[in-house]
């Protein structure tokens, strides 16, 4: 016993180091395997407030540019309105809508890591929950991962954990959108598109209908380069994003009102198997 205590005292620094290293490793592996830790992420009260404070100062520098973006988007919507693309927009039946949109602002953005997270200023108080889609006026941004009362973290599409259903516009050939070349923040990869599908550089990639997170046909980017993968039966496509991931301010969070029903049905089907 005496010897054990002596041993512990002699090596207490080393043991303390191992202990703390172990804690960090547990956190790291947890975040590798599944969602981030529930509490220790940048959507908590302290970090959220500090990021809001800093965003309140820095957001003034981009106001003119941000206004231009919003006017541009308004113009696009008006174009659609005048050309009657949205049929009788004033008579939308509130029982038949599938999606609701919440607006928000980015208060912290990262794109240089392997797993990038974006912190936004909407949280549980605005009925934001995990797995809601986040888009900008140009294209998709990511999926809500954690929420606190007033803030949320969004797993960016620039993350090696990200996997989003996507397809080629005006076709039904869908694949998975991943981020494999993790140093280029303007390009993501679309995989699992069969080689029979005709492709052209410049084709538009949009979100597919297989996801209960994003509505169909939200723009993602254009094909920059494509090649066959190792198995020679699927394409490996580089997609250049419409979004400038380095410069994001106003965002929209999408709530799929049918998501709960879809998930319940899927869970039930799987349970019956």
């Amino acid at each position, binding site marked *: 016993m005496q010897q054990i205590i002596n041993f512990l005292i002699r090596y*207490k*620094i*080393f043991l*303390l*180091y191992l202990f*703390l*290293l172990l*804690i*960090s*490793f547990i*956190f*790291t592996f*947890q*975040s*590798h395997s599944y969602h*981030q*830790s529930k509490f*220790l*992420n*940048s959507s*908590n009260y302290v*970090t959220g407030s*500090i*990021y809001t404070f*800093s965003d309140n100062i820095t957001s003034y520098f981009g106001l003119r540019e941000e206004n231009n973006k919003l006017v541009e988007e308004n113009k696009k919507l008006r174009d659609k309105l005048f050309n009657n693309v949205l049929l009788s927009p004033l008579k939308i039946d509130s029982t038949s809508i599938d999606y609701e949109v919440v607006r928000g602002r980015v208060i*912290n*953005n*990262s*794109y*240089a*890591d*392997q*797993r990038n*997270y974006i*912190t936004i200023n909407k949280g549980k108080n605005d009925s934001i929950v995990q797995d809601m889609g986040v888009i900008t006026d140009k294209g998709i941004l990511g999926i809500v991962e954690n929420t606190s009362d007033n803030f949320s*973290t969004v797993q960016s599409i620039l993350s090696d954990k990200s996997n989003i259903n996507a397809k080629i516009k005006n076709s039904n050939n869908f694949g998975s959108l991943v981020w494999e070349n*993790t*140093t*280029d*923040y303007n390009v993501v990869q679309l995989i699992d598109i069969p080689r029979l599908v005709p492709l052209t550089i410049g084709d538009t990639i949009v979100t597919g209908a297989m996801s209960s997170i994003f509505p169909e046909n939200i723009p993602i980017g254009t094909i920059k380069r494509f090649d066959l993968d190792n198995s020679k039966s699927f394409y490996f496509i580089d997609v250049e994003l419409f979004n400038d991931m*380095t410069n994001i301010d106003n965002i929209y969070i999408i709530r799929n009102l049918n998501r709960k029903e879809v998930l319940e049905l899927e869970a039930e089907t799987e349970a019956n198997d």
Partner: protein
Amino acid sequence: MINSTSFLIVLRFILLVLVQVLVFNKLNFFGYINPLIYILFLYWYPIKQNRTTFIILCFFLGLCVDIFSDTLAINAAATVTIAYLRPTIMRFVFGVNYEFQSFKLNNSTKAQQFTFLALLIIIHHLVYFTLEIFSFSNSLLILRKTLTVGVSTLILGILFSTLFSSKKE
């Protein structure tokens, strides 16, 4: 025991975390270079202090940066590693005389200070990027990031340590 040293350490801790997350994490020089300037905390930390407190403090320093940047907990792992290795590095760089009462960082030569900081940065960044990228097939990427980010941290670290040097002569 609240004295000026402890106060200075706490102040340094808070300021370095804030500077790291609000300024240097958003630098994105060449797209991905974000200097990890907060490890200057370990460079400046007094030598003759309780090691247990030091390691625990460094763990929380890394954890704070992790929480802000959603990188749980690779900063903590890297920082606690160099906190543990710091006496070994100091013995290597300064020789045995760093254990004497009169030894001060400012009294050592510029070359010694430089080597000390460089070693801290190399080990920290190597652990950090290994854990971040987490695959040995990408070892070239790990080395490249360690080198480029390490050099930027080193340059800024030298600038900072010169700027806030306590030597007034």
